[in-house]
């Protein structure tokens, strides 16, 4: 069986991203390993407590020879414009999670709102990546 283990997100600054995802979103560090033999490449992953087998890789944008400067600039620009990807999180209680995260300083671009599939809200990480926070609730059959 094929399963999802990690999915990668570019981040502008790994320290800043780490603080945001752990201190503000409430995730935990899964791996934080720096490899000198790979030019100090840092494998940094976070995930939600209680969901051990899925992580987000907070990946720094590399320089040459992995990525040429022009391409790195394009990735940075796309990320800064908010078009580099989205993480879809779910919660049992969107309003409660919204208040909790807001209390920790997360600025939401979309407050919780009723949608046909449940209650949905959204915010961004410091890099500009979009994060959805959804309480999935399919309409009860009347």
């Amino acid at each position, binding site marked *: 069986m094929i399963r999802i283990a990690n999915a990668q997100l570019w981040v502008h600054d790994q320290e*800043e991203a780490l603080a945001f995802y752990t201190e503000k979103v409430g995730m935990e560090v899964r791996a934080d390993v720096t490899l000198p033999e790979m030019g100090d490449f840092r494998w940094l992953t976070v995930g939600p407590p209680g969901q051990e087998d899925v992580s987000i890789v907070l990946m720094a944008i590399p320089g040459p020879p992995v990525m040429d400067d022009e391409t790195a600039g394009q990735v940075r620009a796309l*990320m*800064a*414009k908010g078009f580099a990807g989205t993480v879809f999180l779910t919660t049992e209680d969107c309003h409660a999670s919204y208040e909790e995260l807001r209390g920790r300083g997360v*600025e939401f671009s*979309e*407050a919780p709102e009723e949608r046909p599939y449940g209650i949905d809200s959204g915010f961004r990480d410091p*890099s500009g990546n979009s994060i959805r926070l959804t309480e999935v609730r399919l*309409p009860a059959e*009347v």
Partner: protein
Amino acid sequence: MAFVPPARHLLRAKDLADARYFEPLGVDDLARSAGLSRAHFSREFRRAFGESPHAYLLTRRLERAAALLRTTDQSVADVCLSVGLQSVGSFTTSFKRAFGLSPTAYRAEHPPAAHRALVPGCVVRAYARPQHRTFREDRAPARA
């Protein structure tokens, strides 16, 4: 900390429009949130996102207004104010230009808001059950 790409500040302004469209927010406020002068901000915003900040804010408000017209029974004037616009006249004009229909006609094109309300079955059963009428009441005048 690494150098922050300028577009990140523009995205902050775009997010502000998405989050606080219902407030009396203008391009000046968006420019301030990006830390740029108004003229420079408008030029840079257009370069990054392909439309002016004014157009982005207005179309966000119109999108939200359309959702309110579809999903609520608020009056057109209330919808206009709810999305941060002051003049019902210019709201109606902009709405028509964007959607090809006046707010009233747009609402009429969509199923009534009541059809979309996800009222739980127990509430429907409790509130939709008619009052019992006897045979004797059939001949009574509709209103006493």
